[in-house]
């Protein structure tokens, strides 16, 4: 009988099979099932407001995983996520409202269209690196947003479009809880797909491109193909997230997809951890909930400091910037690393080292 309080002191793999395994230790499987169950059961206990917040976190997490595949794993910086979200949202909106397609066809199609647009703007990545690519994607953001807000006949211009919630038969995903489950399932699929992606040849090629693109080319990785593919896969998820978000808020309009959204998504993967799937989820939750928590704190303190509500908007920006900089300085690997540090600490406790 093993002592239940003793934990593994590390992961020790003796063959490649173990190293590549998705469940590194048998016990992890049960832990993951338990966590998934917890999240599945959680709406039963929470209020609609909390469930709504969780849905937003989930949608953001799907987009953040998408961005992390591109920026964290393949090393191609993109400041255009906001616009790509918009492409996804608008595609789904146009397909469902104008062409009468169901959400279940429109959402994957929105992902596909966004993926193609993303790949298109990814083509310059062959010649452009780092800074220059970041600037090119910034231009993509501005140009896409301009097209969206000017193409009145299709996109409804600055007024935007109104969407419906998805339906199955006569069931409408109208309640917060039902939409939470929809998001939850899609997030689960996204996570499983991306975890597995990096166990395949394609995913490994992405990582090789990030670590040193020229070296990757030397060992036979077609840079152009994999960079564009990274943009494609990443934008697909961003597009799906955009469609989900559009159907959740039931409106799409240009100002919802501004450059500040792009920056928020970059902050999510940075705070969560570049090159970490679970990190993207933590980061998405962190950045989505930060303004909410801040508002609560302000409400709490407003009795003592009456002027506080007036500066809430400004304070949000200051806190947002501070978080980015503090994470960059003190924990560049993000929340994922912090979580691993905590686990490592308890793994070895009381004998750290």
């Amino acid at each position, binding site marked *: 009988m093993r002592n239940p309080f003793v934990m593994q002191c590390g992961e020790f793999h003796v063959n490649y099979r173990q190293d590549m395994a998705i469940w590194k230790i048998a016990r992890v499987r049960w832990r993951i099932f338990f966590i998934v169950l917890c999240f599945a059961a959680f709406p039963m206990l929470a209020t609609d407001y909390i469930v709504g917040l969780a849905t937003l976190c989930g949608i953001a997490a799907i987009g953040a995983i998408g961005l992390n595949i591109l920026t964290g794993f393949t090393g191609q910086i993109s400041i255009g996520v906001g616009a790509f979200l918009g492409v996804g949202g608008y595609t789904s909106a146009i397909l469902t409202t104008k062409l009468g397609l169901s959400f279940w066809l429109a959402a994957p199609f929105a992902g596909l269209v966004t993926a193609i647009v993303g790949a298109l703007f990814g083509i310059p990545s062959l010649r452009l690196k780092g800074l220059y690519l970041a600037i090119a994607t910034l231009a993509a953001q501005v140009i896409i947003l301009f097209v969206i807000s000017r193409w009145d006949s299709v996109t409804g211009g600055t007024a935007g479009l109104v969407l419906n919630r998805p339906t199955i038969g006569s069931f409408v995903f109208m309640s917060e809880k039902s939409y939470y489950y929809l998001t939850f399932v899609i997030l689960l699929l996204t996570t499983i797909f991306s975890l597995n992606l990096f166990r395949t040849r394609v995913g490994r090629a992405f990582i090789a491109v990030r670590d040193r693109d020229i070296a990757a080319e030397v060992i036979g990785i077609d840079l152009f193909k994999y960079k564009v593919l990274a943009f494609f896969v990443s934008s697909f998820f961003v597009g799906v997230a955009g469609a989900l978000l559009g159907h959740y808020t039931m409106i799409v309009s240009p100002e919802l997809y501004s450059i500040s959204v792009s920056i928020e998504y970059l902050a999510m993967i940075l705070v969560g951890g570049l090159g970490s799937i679970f990190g993207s989820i933590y980061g998405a939750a962190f950045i989505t909930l930060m303004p909410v928590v801040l508002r609560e704190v302000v409400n709490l303190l407003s009795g003592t400091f009456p002027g506080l509500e007036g500066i809430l908007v400004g304070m949000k*920006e200051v806190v947002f*910037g501070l978080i*980015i900089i503090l994470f960059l300085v003190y924990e560049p690997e993000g929340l994922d690393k912090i979580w691993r540090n905590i686990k490592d600490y308890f793994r070895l406790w009381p004998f750290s080292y």
Partner: protein
Amino acid sequence: MEFFLQMLVTGIVVGSVYALVALGFVLIYKSSDAINFAQGEFLLVGTYVCLTLVASYNIPFIAALLITLAFSAILGFAVEKVVLRPFIGKPVISMIMATIGLSSILAGIVHIIWGHETRVYPPIFSETPIRLGKVIITPVYAWSFVIVIAWLILLSAFFKYSRLGIAMRATADDQQAALSMGISVKMVFAVAWAIAAIVSSVGGVLLGNINGVNSSLSMIGLKVLPVAILGGLDSIQGAIIGGLIIGIIESMTGGYLDPLVGGGLKEVVPFIILVLILMVKPYGLFGKKEIERV
């Protein structure tokens, strides 16, 4: 023809302000390889400080401008020291995110202190327009142009003749060699940030005089990117010429194409140019080509 000249004059004036702000941007890139996404917020802070001094404390404009410049220099020094120093030599994304974080902080502070409404400078330049043939130029535009040109000459002289300016050029050329010649590279970085903050606040004050002051002024910080890329990220003369070109194209688009598409193209055209340049000539008109070797 008259309309064309009018647009040309507007384009040159706005373009010269772009040139000035882009100069600060290029200076930072040249010296420390950092892209400064907070350039627009530097501009915003400078404008608001000057506005407050002029409008609330009734300080004469010239004195207020001088105080603003001193303030900007201190801000630039402080930012370099506190925020940017830890990121020298880190991956590109750290640098980008650090300056984005910085811009968020500065924008937040501006919102907290000055709010969201558009404010205007009390009239500083005379209102009577100057006539050049058929073209009408308002004094604000004329003065802006003169001030920008004066600054550009001043800075060119600074880089050419002053000891510090030469040290800055040396550092941009080869950091290690500069270090071994006894140049304080830290000092050079700090001065680069200070100058960037100063020129942006000059640009901001001028634009504020032309259009009024609100937080959307910080969008100039993004518009500087096409300017800098067009001229070449590490070329000072490139920034000046790029600024003028972008300013003129923008003004022409606003005059001729915007009525056709229903407005807004003016704001986007610099970015379309940006994509084209990146596709064709990524290092811009005057930028140094980097050849990567394995």
